[in-house]
């Protein structure tokens, strides 16, 4: 039943922000600090980590020992609320022959509540990929444009790490990073073996505090070296907008947050000027409108794109004169490699919890070989490192029973290691999203339909990664536990790494891109995009730090425009 839209609140907003994750949280923080009144709409429910996170319960308190299920894809205690790979009543569809996974939480703070926390900087090559290898497109900005914002974001969100000192892996200036944690034994062994093969290993950059971060409103504490980060962090050691940017923005008195607000479209004052947005209250089904001088979309790559596709006139979507809206969809490549390392069997026990995830990682190191044409793939990949004490995987335990099984478990605990590949995908014409012409969600909003295909470039990259990982394992005398399958069969599905990017990309002109270097849509001056949709390329580097830096830069640019009298 369609009801007439009615004004949601009496708030007079300068800016309406859609989404409360990394991009929306940063926009709300930056714009309210600049003196602007903001209303933030979040599709999911209200969420307070301090009230809800069960940080210390053992997995044995949970159903199924906390194992992943379709209801809780990353385990029972994982912070994801109301969604996951599926959201009830809000499907998405696939073009025939395509496989794509779309991860959607429905909660204040979005994915920052349960994210991976690995925050490498993009480097100079990553912003000019076309200039380097003739594939894809260049960004309209370069590393030097974003570097000051990387510096500030690292200090704002709290990042630990060390120097990298490698080509296309920029180091942070002094004062940006907190000290990294000591590596664990399996990580140290991987470092020794990899470096013996000429493969570098460095301290990872991780968005977890290793020093207290005082603040009058949202003080955060250094990591207590225990509990799984993806449950959320009641002491604020892991960066989440719900324990940092959002409460700090609220404390200005200039932020209104509305949760359970599923935005359905951007409303227009005239063809080149947005009036605000229309949303559906998830609890009542009522439609409301919010008017503002500027509309910021930070709903996540897929939802931001869907919103634009479902707005505007004539079915072409809003801000799509270039025809690029929905195109250039990428995800990171993914594959995992594992081995049993006899040298780690029965090793002395100690506490390996550390700061949660990896302490060190393998950055991409083959830029010169690639430049000389010695590799059969373009762009890079990195390895994230895993391996700790705990219950060994079933395939590291022999088919025995009785006292032999108990002995085998003790021996194998802490003796398996994992190298997880994350690589860059080059945009291709067969990977995109579009509004489904038929299927609508429970609010009557057309859903997204995805098409996706890896190219030979990505397949060759994963094959190279497997050869590399297995060489490292063999150097350690390891027994490889991976099935012997072609690379196509060991790659993750599109979207599965949850790094979907690029469907409203930025560029130097309105013919080939949806937004400019500040996320401003070429067609609608007061409509600004701030999430992963604006990426012109994905790099192999986890995107959240770059999303935060771009959102900060775009927000400050927007604040200057508003203060100079634009959109009066």
């Amino acid at each position: 039943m369609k009801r007439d839209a009615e004004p949601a609140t009496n708030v007079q907003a300068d800016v309406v922000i859609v989404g409360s994750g990394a991009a929306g949280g940063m926009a709300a923080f930056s714009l309210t600090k600049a003196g602007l009144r903001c209303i933030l709409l979040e599709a999911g429910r209200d969420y307070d980590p301090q009230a809800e996170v069960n940080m210390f319960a053992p997995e044995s308190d949970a159903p199924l020992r906390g194992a992943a299920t379709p209801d809780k894809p990353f385990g029972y205690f994982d912070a994801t609320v109301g969604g996951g790979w599926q959201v009830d009543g809000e499907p998405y569809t696939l073009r025939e022959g395509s496989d794509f996974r779309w991860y959607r939480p429905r909660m204040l703070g979005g994915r920052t509540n349960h994210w991976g926390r690995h925050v490498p900087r993009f480097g100079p090559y990553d912003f000019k990929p076309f200039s380097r290898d003739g594939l894809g497109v260049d960004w309209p900005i370069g590393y030097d444009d974003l570097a000051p914002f990387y510096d500030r974001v690292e200090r704002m969100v709290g990042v630990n790490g060390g120097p990298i000192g490698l080509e296309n892996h920029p180091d942070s200036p002094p004062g940006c990073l907190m000290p990294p944690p000591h590596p664990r034994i399996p990580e140290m062994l991987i470092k020794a073996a990899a470096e013996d093969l000429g493969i570098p290993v460095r301290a990872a950059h991780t968005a977890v505090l290793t020093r207290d971060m005082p603040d009058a409103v949202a003080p955060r504490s250094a990591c207590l070296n225990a509990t799984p980060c993806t449950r959320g962090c009641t002491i604020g050691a892991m960066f989440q907008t719900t324990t940092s940017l959002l409460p700090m923005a609220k404390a200005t008195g200039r932020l209104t947050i509305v949760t359970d607000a599923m935005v359905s479209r951007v409303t227009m004052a005239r063809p080149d000027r947005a009036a605000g947005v229309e949303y559906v209250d998830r609890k009542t089904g009522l439609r409301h409108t919010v008017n503002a001088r500027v509309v910021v979309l930070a709903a996540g790559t897929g939802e931001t794109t869907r919103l634009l596709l479902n707005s505007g006139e004539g079915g072409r979507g809003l801000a799509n004169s270039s025809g690029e809206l929905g195109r250039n969809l990428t995800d990171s490549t993914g594959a995992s490699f594992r081995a049993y390392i006899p040298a780690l069997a029965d090793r002395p026990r100690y506490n390996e919890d550390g700061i949660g995830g990896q302490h060190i990682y393998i950055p991409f190191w083959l830029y010169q070989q690639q430049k000389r044409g010695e590799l059969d793939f373009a762009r890079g990949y990195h390895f994230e490192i895993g391996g700790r004490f705990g219950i060994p995987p079933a395939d590291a335990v022999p088919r025995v029973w009785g006292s032999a099984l108990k002995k085998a478990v003790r021996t194998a605990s802490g003796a398996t290691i994992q190298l997880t590949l994350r690589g860059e995908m080059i945009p291709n014409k067969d990977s995109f999203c579009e509004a489904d012409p038929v299927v609508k969600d429970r609010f009557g909003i057309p859903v997204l339909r995805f098409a996706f295909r890896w190219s030979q470039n990505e397949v060759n990259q994963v094959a190279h990664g497997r050869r590399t990982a297995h060489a490292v394992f063999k150097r350690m005398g390891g027994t490889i536990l991976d099935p012997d399958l072609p690379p196509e069969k060991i790659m993750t599905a599109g979207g599965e790494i949850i790094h979907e990017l690029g469907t409203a990309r930025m560029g130097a002109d309105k013919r080939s891109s949806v937004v400019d270097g500040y996320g401003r849509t070429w067609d609608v001056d007061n409509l600004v995009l701030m999430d992963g949709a604006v990426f012109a390329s994905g790099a192999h580097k986890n995107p959240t730090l770059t999303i935060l830096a771009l959102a900060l830069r775009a927000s400050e640019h927007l604040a200057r425009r508003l203060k100079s009298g634009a959109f009066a």
Partner: protein
Amino acid sequence: MTPSRRTTMQWMMAAAAMPLAHWTTPAMAEGVDDAAGAVPSFDVIADWPDIPPPPPAPGYGRDPDLANPQVPWPLTLAAAQRKTVDVLGDLILPKDAASPGAGALGVGAFIDEWISAPYPQQRADRAKVVGGLLWLDAQSHALHNRAFVGIGPQQQATLLDALSVPVPIAKMVAPVAFMDTLRRLFVLGFYSLPEGKADMGYIGDQPTAGAYPGPTSEALSHYAHALGRMGLKMPTA
């Protein structure tokens, strides 16, 4: 019909007489070659039972109360089946100086909770476990005229040995997969409890203020020796 050990031997002799490349059976399509499989020491092998699919059951949903975890689905095992699972738990992970047996520790309750859950992985495991419990009793009856819990320790051990071979013959593929599933579930259920963590010597889940201390000197010494044996250099920093 239950093929006897003699029948199995006849298959094996037939296989040996054939060029291997042409020796294909449905069992081989599953990667199992009777010619290479371990033949059990008993000469009767019970048929694998058909298990009807379970009725639908509720999951815990996408937004459960994390502070008060609840299992909303009904359990599966009858008292006699649960007793068999507990006996199997104490055989698969027996009491020793380091920890109690998995059956005595109550891990059977976790097995029942797991196989009763409405999710795809658990439904697949349910078919293996419920089928396997029926098979195990049928096999015990065929050999010893008693259910599995009523036969002697040596007879139980013979059965579990037959279910733990690296390469089973075709007729034993499903029973061995049952044992694999039970082993995996008992290991998960047992070593996630405090008694199991203590058995592994697991140290963790302890809030520690200040910088992460890293490996102990004993762990570092063990590491240095491992590097030496591999001819690897101690990495810098």
